[in-house]
């Protein structure tokens, strides 16, 4: 019984949160909370590199500003939080 079980992930009906990769999670998080795809007053989208967006997120959340999708950043993205964007669009 001590042999590790081989986990099988399934898609649960009605589950709003889908199984997603860390990169998908980060992409959605950065968009949702305003770190990328920022609309300028001109109406054009400013291009924000993922690294810059991650750094800004890490600064906001008090994490080490690595600019990369490291484990502390992924963990922070999985924490429960307020839905109001951190960066106003």
């Amino acid at each position, binding site marked *: 019984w001590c042999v590790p*079980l081989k*986990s*099988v*992930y*399934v898609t*649960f*009906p*009605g*589950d*709003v*949160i889908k*199984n997603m990769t860390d990169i998908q999670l980060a992409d959605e998080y950065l968009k*949702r*909370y305003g770190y990328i795809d920022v609309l300028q007053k001109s109406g054009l989208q400013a291009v924000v590199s993922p690294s810059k967006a991650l750094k800004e997120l890490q*600064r*906001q*959340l*008090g994490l080490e500003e690595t600019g990369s999708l490291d484990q502390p950043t992924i963990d*922070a993205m*999985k*924490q*429960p*939080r*307020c*839905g*109001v964007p*951190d960066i*106003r669009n």
Partner: protein
Amino acid sequence: YQTFDGDLKWDHSEVTYRILNYSPDMESSLIDDAFARAFKVWSDVTPLTFTRLYDGTADIMISFGRADHGDPYPFDGKDGLLAHAYPPGQGIQGDAHFDDDEYWTLGSGPAIQTRYGNAEGALCHFPFLFEGTSYSSCTTEGREDGLPWCATTADYDKDKKYGFCPSELLFTFDGNSNEAPCVFPFVFQGVKYNSCTTDGRSDGYRWCATTANFDTDKKYGFCPNRDTAVIGGNSEGEPCQFPFIFLGQSYTSCTSEGRSDGKLWCGTTSNYDTDKKWGFCPDRGYSLFLVAAHEFGHALGLDHSNVKDALMFPMYKYIEDFSLNQDDIAGIQYLYGPKTGPDPTPPKPKTTTSSPIGPTKPTPSEKTTTVSTTTDVVPSQDACQIKEFDTITEIQKELYFFKNGHYWKISSKGERKGPFLISEKWPALPAIINSAFEDQLTKKIYFFAGKQFWVYTGNDVLGPRKIEKLGLPIDLDRVEGAVQRAKGKVLLFKGENFWRLDVKAQMIDTGYPRLTDSAFGGVPIDSHDVFLYKGFFYFCRESFYWRMNAKKQVDRVGYVKYDLLKC
């Protein structure tokens, strides 16, 4: 701290709020209380006041919803995004929305307020012992009516303190049935239902009919979640079914198998593989108070802070003994300034020889009088303009307010009626009543005025009799408060003393008076009115009340006018 662009803020300091609906996770009274405490976080450090409205448009409209809930920012199921709010302004601005796919608690597990029983509305105590077995959730053991119950102390066998847990068999919420319980089976669109259902709704809320036929009667309410109910998934509100089969394996407890996020879930039928019915298992939940205090910060004009210990930091963290961080205080005071002076107390009316109040208008009979909402109001007959009532008491589950020959009453739905003439309903009584109570056993109503008391049984009256006949001191000039206790006992208050009256024996028990301060710490010893309402003790001084729970903790201080009188 940060504020929104342009320093958005309310242009008035008397901010109003309205609770549009409730979550099935907690009793409405606990939700009301969590929101009130969350507002108090901000009113404690600013000149802002928060007044609850029960209809119409308030500055801050509060609601619970799931996924797509009517604005452009859908919620995301359990965990993740918990709530959001809009900065001050008209329309949706200022509103606060809470994701009802979360499990809302007071932050440390199920917060289950009991009803009925003998615990006077105390919270369940988990775990508790019953006949030697330990229970960590409400149980129907020991009962034949299927009503879940819990003990409110650690050991039921020793203390015998219990109450009933929320269930659809006990009450519903919202809807149009005034909290009536579900009636099973009920008919909806020709189909018979034996349990709460989400059929006919797109928001996933479980409901039931409160008569046998919804199609004809249209009476319904929403089902409160039992503490054993799953959260979210596709079976919200259903209990786990153990054992259940998942991918051919049998599970006798919640599992995280099948999920990459590690969350515990269970099947709500015996076979997930065939039925695909599931939900998340209850956990500690999120503190509605803490999340609401954060969201109300947005609704007042604060954006997210990057100070980790600040309330306005975007991530949720449970704190047992919450206090506002200096960063939050600096932020809100940047917008509204600091609180000035002591807590507001109303100015005392000047004594004049000529009353500004006109002659008393003829008062219609109780049957025809409704809420006084016209602008042409005689102050003496407008309950909302009365600073201090002669007495307040609960009679037949309605809260009565007496003042100078008149009375008003608030129904359990919060509807105010009056004024009525005391002399029409209880003709033997004087205009000014100092105290009153309804005996729980006999339903007789006792009135105290000065050194006399009267007992009404329907329209029959006994009295006046001298209060010294009850064993109260001869020099006692009046009784100012009365609180019904179990087994025919009533506590009578005057100033810093209280006495226990044995209603059946019509005599004060030996060992009294006792000091109010020693038994009811934290309330004003000069309360001019004391009464019991919905299981709480209320001590009134001027226009304020101190509310004490069954554990004798002062859990709320508020305005009689707004909270009780619903002005």
